């Protein structure tokens, strides 16, 4: 187990810069998830940590060793690839034993470790099969087993579950979580899947175009996104962002957007310059439609017209028109509403996030 440190890590392909000075400190036994749009450099960062890609600038430290010039085999990291990369001519047992054999471990120890890992992953019955004779989920497990048996300092995962169907993915996700609780190995995990990121991560790293946008716990990046990009990338449906202004009404700091005016909570955003333009960010689940009288302060209740109502099993999505602003609201339960219906909604304004319209950064 080990800490992983990225100090101003840069990656160029010729003249093209794909990672721009990434700084990141990953604690021992932490589970870090890298997310971001396609092509933002997630795999590149992972592969630089693994040693499969050279580092163009800065340094990567694993444990207390700078590994820039250390070959992959000497970094003691294990990686699980999206296509599993199982050795096709070897049985499951040989696949899992390969790393240990390379490390010249004694035979009986290899045998013991492989059997242990196979038991953990319920691979016992398949040990003598070749990968071609396994299902996708079983192959996934073998890939995982191959990583576990070596007891590496760091696990690297590059979209390991993306080739599985939805059901299996949920199941494997939970097993991954259990494995991490059991082995406590430092883990760096790349995914496209928001739910995987939210459920697995101790901290999430959001990347865009090779720049780290924000690093924080799932709740932090959800509730206090550092900029508009994060606000809209994390969360589904994304955060509502509308243009507005800050003004004082009867001495109280108030957000105004068209005909909508909302008094800011007393402990937030009180020192913004009067008349400043802002982008107002409100999560879809921060707009309440049920039990509004009990849950929301009176100043934050507004009248709304339903444009569209969608029922998604356990919750409903509403597109609302509130004083000529369009909002998406995510409400629990099945709301039988129709276009044109009038409802009273309540804003959880203590969760509002304001962004600077020029820089799109969150305002402190």
């Amino acid at each position: 187990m080990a800490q992983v440190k990225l100090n101003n890590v840069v990656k160029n392909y010729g003249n093209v810069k794909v990672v721009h000075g990434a700084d990141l400190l990953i604690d021992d036994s932490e589970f870090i998830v890298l997310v971001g749009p396609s092509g933002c450099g997630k795999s590149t960062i992972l592969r630089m940590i693994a040693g499969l890609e050279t580092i163009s600038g800065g340094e990567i430290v694993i444990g207390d060793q700078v590994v820039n010039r250390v070959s992959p085999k000497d970094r003691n990291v294990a990686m699980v690839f999206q296509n599993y990369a199982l050795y096709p001519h070897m049985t499951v047992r040989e696949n899992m034993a390969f790393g240990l054999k390379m490390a010249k471990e004694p035979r009986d120890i290899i045998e013991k470790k492989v059997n242990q890992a196979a038991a953990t992953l319920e691979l016992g019955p398949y040990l003598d099969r070749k990968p071609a004779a396994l299902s996708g989920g079983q192959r996934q497990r073998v890939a995982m087993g191959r990583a576990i048996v070596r007891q590496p300092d760091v696990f690297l995962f590059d979209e390991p579950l993306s080739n599985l169907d939805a059901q299996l993915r949920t199941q494997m996700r939970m097993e991954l979580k259990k494995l991490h609780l059991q082995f406590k190995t430092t883990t760096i995990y790349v995914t496209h899947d928001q739910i995987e990121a939210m459920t697995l991560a101790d901290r999430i790293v959001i990347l865009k175009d090779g720049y780290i946008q924000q690093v924080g716990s799932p709740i932090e990046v959800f509730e206090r996104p550092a900029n508009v990009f994060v606000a809209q990338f994390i969360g589904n449906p994304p955060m509502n962002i509308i243009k507005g202004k800050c003004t004082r009404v009867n001495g109280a700091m108030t957000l105004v957007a068209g005909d909508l005016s909302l008094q800011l909570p007393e402990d937030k955003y009180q020192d913004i310059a009067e008349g400043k333009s802002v982008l107002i960010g409100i999560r879809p689940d921060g707009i309440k439609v049920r039990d509004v009288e009990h849950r929301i302060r009176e100043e934050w209740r507004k009248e709304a017209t339903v444009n569209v109502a969608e029922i998604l099993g356990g919750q409903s999505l509403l597109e609302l028109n509130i004083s000529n602003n369009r909002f998406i609201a995510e409400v629990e339960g099945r709301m039988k509403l129709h276009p044109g219906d009038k409802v009273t909604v309540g804003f959880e304004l203590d969760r509002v996030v304001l962004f600077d319209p020029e820089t799109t950064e969150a305002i402190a």
Partner: protein
Amino acid sequence: MKSKVNIKTVSYYATLGILVIFFLMPAYMAVVTALKQPGDITLPTSWDLPATLNWASFSEAFAMLRPNLVNSFILTICATAGSTILGSLNGYVFSKWKFKGSEIIFTLFLFGMFIPYQVILIPLFQTLRAMNLYGGLPGLILAHIVYGLPITSLIFRNFYAQIPDSLIESARLDGAGFFSVYLKLVFPLSIPGFVVTSLWQFTQIWNEFLWAITLTRHSENPITVGLANLAGGQAVSWNLPMAGSIMAALPVLCIYIFLGRYFIRGLLAGSVKE
């Protein structure tokens, strides 16, 4: 389905039939001549079937060509093994361990494929003489190994392009270095590649004549040269060279009969996605 016999099909088959006869003519001539008594071989009767079968031509020819056959086997097996193994290593480097400039070097390598045997004959002769390898089998073996490298490297490079990079990367993370990745992973996965390449090399080297006659002294002559000597003297008994050439063709023929399907499969490998 009703079978349609019309002018078109008839003319197809007629053309094919004529071509088959045309292509098989030399083979027919070789077999009938080999089986005739030396006295029965005359120009006017050369197309006739033998009156009596003279199987002794084969044993006689074999006795005369035996040293050449042995030389050919040594030459072909050593040179095929050498060029195939080195080609496989080259292909491995050119596809999986690319380095700065490796594409350019590979392209230069490929030029070698387009150089005909004759063009490098004299420099080759001089080089081997300078290396003190002129006249013997080792020199010829070396020449064939080097000359074979471009094509074997190309076949293996394309073959290894099918092995996903992540397999190699996975093995590297599992602690394997350059040679252990090759020995434990790439080599076991490349048996079909070895079959294709060695078939190709075996045929080329077994059948090669020009270098063989120029670069080896009499006692080291391979079969192609031995055969030419058999046919080259005055007052030739034509049954002997014919029997000899049938024997000389046998190894290559057998290999294709038994391994040919691998050859076709190997050449097609990768052209369709699994």
